[in-house]
């Protein structure tokens, strides 16, 4: 086992994973530096989400290593990985995935409450973050009364409120319109820069990827130099795909 370089927050080496036999990752290695915004790009189905799941400890890769701050994640038990996710990582999904029974500030404070932070303190932190993301007035409303963009901003606030080391954002703006999209991304990236939070996000949008410090293009579960496919000649590969239908 090779110890990872010291300046990398997350370091992965030759990750292989498959979902019930269908291949998802085929030997991906990457390092994420401290305070960096890294975009994992590629078309749908190229393994971005699986890679983020592996890096954040939600999945254990079949082969390969994942290190977080020089601690191996791939050898941790499920309980330790949960704790790591709760204390050090934030997660933003394409859908807001809020708890419908809790109101806005309770949803935002949930990671803190789960860690056992006193209620008053958790509320203060949550309200501060909601204020910064321009959804302070909705703090007492339930998620079903809000717009999709506001809900996604709550999810961002929830990820930020826990003061994590790394935030994983899996297509954080996939279900939003363009104006909401820019707003969410701008708040996320500026908050991360000002608080020194590392962000790993997955996206298929080149415009969003331009916000990142560095991009890692994926194609069919592998790291490639560029996502653009070489334009093949017209006849090439025709015979292999001939079908009688």
């Amino acid at each position, binding site marked *: 086992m090779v110890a990872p370089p010291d300046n990398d927050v997350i370091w992965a080496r030759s990750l292989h994973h498959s*979902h*019930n036999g269908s291949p998802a990752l085929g030997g991906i290695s990457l390092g994420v530096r401290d305070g960096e915004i890294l975009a994992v790009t590629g078309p749908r189905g190229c393994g971005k*989400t699986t890679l983020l799941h592996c890096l954040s400890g*939600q999945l254990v890769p079949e082969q390969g290593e994942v290190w977080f701050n020089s601690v191996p994640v791939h050898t941790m038990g499920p*309980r330790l990985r*949960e*704790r*790591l*996710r*709760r*204390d050090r*990582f934030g*997660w933003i*999904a*394409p*859908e807001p*995935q*809020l*708890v*419908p*029974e*809790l109101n806005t500030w*309770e949803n935002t404070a*949930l*990671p803190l*409450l*789960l860690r*056992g932070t006193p*209620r008053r303190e958790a509320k203060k932190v949550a309200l501060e973050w909601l204020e910064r993301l321009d959804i302070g007035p909705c703090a007492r409303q*339930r998620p*079903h*009364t809000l717009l999709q963009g506001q809900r996604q901003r709550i999810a961002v606030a*929830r990820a930020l409120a826990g003061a994590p080391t790394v935030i994983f954002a899996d297509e954080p703006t*996939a*279900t939003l319109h363009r104006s909401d999209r820019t707003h969410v991304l701008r708040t996320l990236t500026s908050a991360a820069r000002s608080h020194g939070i590392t962000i790993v996000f997955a996206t298929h949008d080149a415009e969003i990827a331009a916000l990142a410090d560095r991009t890692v293009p994926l194609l069919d579960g592998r790291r490639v130099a560029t996502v653009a496919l070489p334009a093949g000649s017209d006849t090439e590969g025709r015979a292999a795909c001939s079908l009688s239908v």
Partner: protein
Amino acid sequence: MLALRLARGSHPLVLLRRLLVAAASAGVGFLLLCTLSYASGHPAHSTGAVLRLLWSLVPLAATVQFAVAVARTDPSTRPRSGLSAVGLGPVRLAVLAAVSTAVSCTLGSMVALLFFLHLRGDLTGLPFDGAAAGLLDAEAPLPLAAALVLLALVPVVAATASALALRAEPVSTAAPDNAASKVLTEPEAPPPTAPPAGLPWGVALAAVGLAVEAYMSRGGGHSLLPLPGRLEATPAGVLAGWTLTAVGLAVAGPGLAYLCGRLLQAVRPGAVRLLAGRVLMDESRRIGRPLGVVCAVLTAAVGGYALYGAGAHPLGPLTALGAVLVLGCTTATLLTTALEARQARAQTARALLRLGAPPSALRAATALRAAALLLVFAPLTWLIAELAALPLTV
């Protein structure tokens, strides 16, 4: 055919629930056949036969309630992206639910018929041939049409009820089929409904029921709807009072469950108490009604025990079968509804686990909910049962 194909590929637990419905339907079918054989064996006692028929409606209602609860939890009858993509919308799915409920209930009815004929001695070749020929009036012929109508009662009523119950479901076309599939357009959680308002009505009904029972039991003696097998034993007023109390409990159930949730999340809650209480408040409508029904049945059971348990007459076999059916079906309905609530919240639970919430916290929230409900409903049941039994025993 699709209903059968879906049933064949479903999980053993789903099949077990369907089998339980079949068993309950068999029990009710057997009771109905027994009333029929009593009627054809004793043409002179038509009042007694009608009474038996009326009393067997109670297990029938419990069985139908259970069948509907099972149909609602059945994964094959919920709107799914796979089925809705091939054109199986909510209406067709309701039909599917009705057919699969009818299939399991008909299976039960068939078993009841075979068992009944076997115990009467009409079918031979197995042990216990005609073991209960005396009880089931084997000498009188069984009218075929009447038997078939009675046996069709449970499947028809249960299928209609489950179709109606599932027709009212909100349409969510893009529910993910399993945890692994990543569907971007997850169904919106339905907006939480207003808090249930039935609590005052329920309390009033229960109080009126208790008062009626206490008032009527003073007269004593004459009986309008006696339990068969112990004629002249149950005064009509007492029965009316019990019915009112039971209805009151069922009406008050959601409100009480809501109150439990509200108390649970009051006064500076942590994560576990907050989740437990809020979820109970939102699920109170779903879980409260069957809980109230179970309480009512338990109250009646305790009252019945106070009335008859100490007496010299033991419970007759058919009365015992009916009582077991009612108790079993209502309890199973409660458990199935709890399962339905869990299925409805599976997505939230997944999101919480993704946040890093330990599964033990989610389990603790569930245990807290159950404990709160038990703490409120168990003393209440005991109190009402004692109050209901008081005028009869003193």
